[in-house]
């Protein structure tokens, strides 16, 4: 029969799903079993005790709630900035004509090749001289700035396929450049903007290097996780708890917003195709 799914698809997809899900189960199980049992392997079942000790301990000993709050602030602010600015920049570069357009674009896109490590030292000096160390903006600013390259690139690529007739129609309908952006381009670019938001949120939420270097007490979750890991040798249960708390938010963000990845461009409904 045409269009029937071949049988081998199911086991293969199942296997891939297992590979992905086993570490998660491991993490969960580790967090709710005493350390003495985990040493034998989290999968061992000679003895099986459930305990919330690690959860309570971690919660008491570390400022988890505070770190969670810091993480939220950093990730949300560093995500909203490119979500707002990248479409505007992409629109300007793609649809408007102005001087030095290509040059500025190349400068921005060039940041693409700049990894976090490269900016750390110069930035560290700058922040120290400005007294910005342990201020979350010392992390937010480079997070947002470094994301700009790929965010603009991503949205601009999407706009390559944007039907130019819509923009012209808006022009005939009395829209200036700004109105065209807000009324026409923005509402039809939700897909790439959501993609920028999801990716940037996950990266900034999980970002470790910049927070560890620039922050002292205002630590976000991943930095705290690193600290928990460093204190004792055998506290895998506590590490697991911290890891779960750290992971849960990006996971939920992804599950809620993933439909934007599949939604696809719906801007081409204008004509009969």
């Amino acid at each position, binding site marked *: 029969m045409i269009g029937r799914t071949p049988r081998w698809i199911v086991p293969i997809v199942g296997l891939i799903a297992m590979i992905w899900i086993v570490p998660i189960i491991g993490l969960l199980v580790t967090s709710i079993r005493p350390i003495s049992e985990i040493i034998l392997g989290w999968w061992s079942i000679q003895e099986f005790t459930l305990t919330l000790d690690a959860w309570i301990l971690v919660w008491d000993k570390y400022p988890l709630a505070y770190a969670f709050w810091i993480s939220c602030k950093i990730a949300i602010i560093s995500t909203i900035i490119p979500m707002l600015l990248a479409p505007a920049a992409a629109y300007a570069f793609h649809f408007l004509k102005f001087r030095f357009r290509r040059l500025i674009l190349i400068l921005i896109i060039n940041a693409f090749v700049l990894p976090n490590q490269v900016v750390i030292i110069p930035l560290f000096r700058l922040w120290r001289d400005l007294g910005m160390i342990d201020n979350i903006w010392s992390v937010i600013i480079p997070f947002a700035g470094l994301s700009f390259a790929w965010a603009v690139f991503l949205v601009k690529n999407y706009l390559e396929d944007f*039907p130019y*007739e*819509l923009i*012209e*129609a*808006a*022009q*005939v*309908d*009395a*829209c200036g450049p700004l*109105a065209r952006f807000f*009324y*026409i381009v923005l*509402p*039809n670019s939700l897909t790439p903007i959501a993609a920028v938001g999801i990716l940037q949120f996950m990266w900034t939420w999980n970002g470790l290097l910049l927070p560890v270097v620039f922050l002292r007490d205002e630590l976000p979750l991943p930095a705290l996780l690193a600290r928990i890991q460093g204190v004792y040798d055998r506290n895998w249960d506590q590490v697991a708890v911290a890891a779960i708390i750290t992971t849960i938010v990006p996971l939920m963000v992804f599950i809620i917003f993933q439909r934007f990845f599949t939604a696809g461009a*719906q*801007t*081409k*409904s*204008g*004509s*009969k195709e």
Partner: protein
Amino acid sequence: MATLQLDKLKKCYGEVEVIENLELSIEEGSFTVFVGPSGCGKSTLLRMIAGLEEITAGELRIDGARVNDATPVERGVSMVFQNYALYPHMSVEKNIAFGLKMLGLPKDDIKRRVRAAAETLQIEPLLKRRPSQLSGGQRQRVAIGRAIVREPKLFLFDEPLSNLDAELRVTMRVELAKLHRQIGATMIYVTHDQTEALTLADKIVVLRDGKIEQAGTPMELYLDPANAFVAGFIGSPQMNFIPVTATGIDGGIRLKGSEMGNLDVVPVGQGWSKDMTLNLGVRPEHLQVGSDFPVKFDIAVDVVENLGGTRYVYGGTAGGHQVIAETRADAIPRPGDHLTVGFDPERARFFDQQGVRLRNALPS
């Protein structure tokens, strides 16, 4: 309503000149159609008039005022795009209202005008739908609705019917003609479908390579084409061109085709000379099957196209030229048949080797 003057209008893309020193004036309330082969610059010219494309040189005047640098709104134009360009994220109602909203009209006014436009185009039941939930013809109506609701001085259409199927195209064509009569605004319409051009236009402008080949009423272009290009472009099927040679006679020219009898043109106008080779053009509808014509020749039938009321016979002459003749007789010729076809010399048009029309000195 608006009058329009195009004065030495020019458009260059870098080095390439797409529109060359174009001169044209368009009367108030008229329906003007730009036709021409693909890539000749019809859309470019229309977009220059709309204000979507910069004018490289020359002057564009609407109602006598220079508008080269005016925005589309200041020019008072609306435009219907080939792919409709409906805003996909807005309902039909919002699509139509959008331009008015951007102009800052009061809500009640907008509502009333949208309602009136929807009524004119009979799309009231569709107002709440999204463009993706409409058929091609309905989208076309909405696109037209969006144009008329602004009550512009000048309507521009860029091949608005080319995405529709044949039947719908005929319906919409009739409705467009009705709409023009109803609102009486000046309209400019781009198409490469010459049936649309002939049926809709008050004035047809034939373009080729960014230049006007001829501008005039449909009948002027049909009966009195300025050159072989226009003669070939207007009319369907295409005009037959048969090479003939000229010999001098008293006060005129005698034409000899290799296979037909002599045809005397007396007196001749400018451009004629003895011993020249030229093309005789005669339309298929004037090249009739039958032998009671002053000029006639034989053809061998290749293909017959039966359109019901009339049939087009495609055949080759003894000299090896392909011609198309018409017959309304019930007897359908068959491939391989030999027929005599002929025409009234009045119907013949003459073009020199460069395609320039050669005229009789006086209309006889």
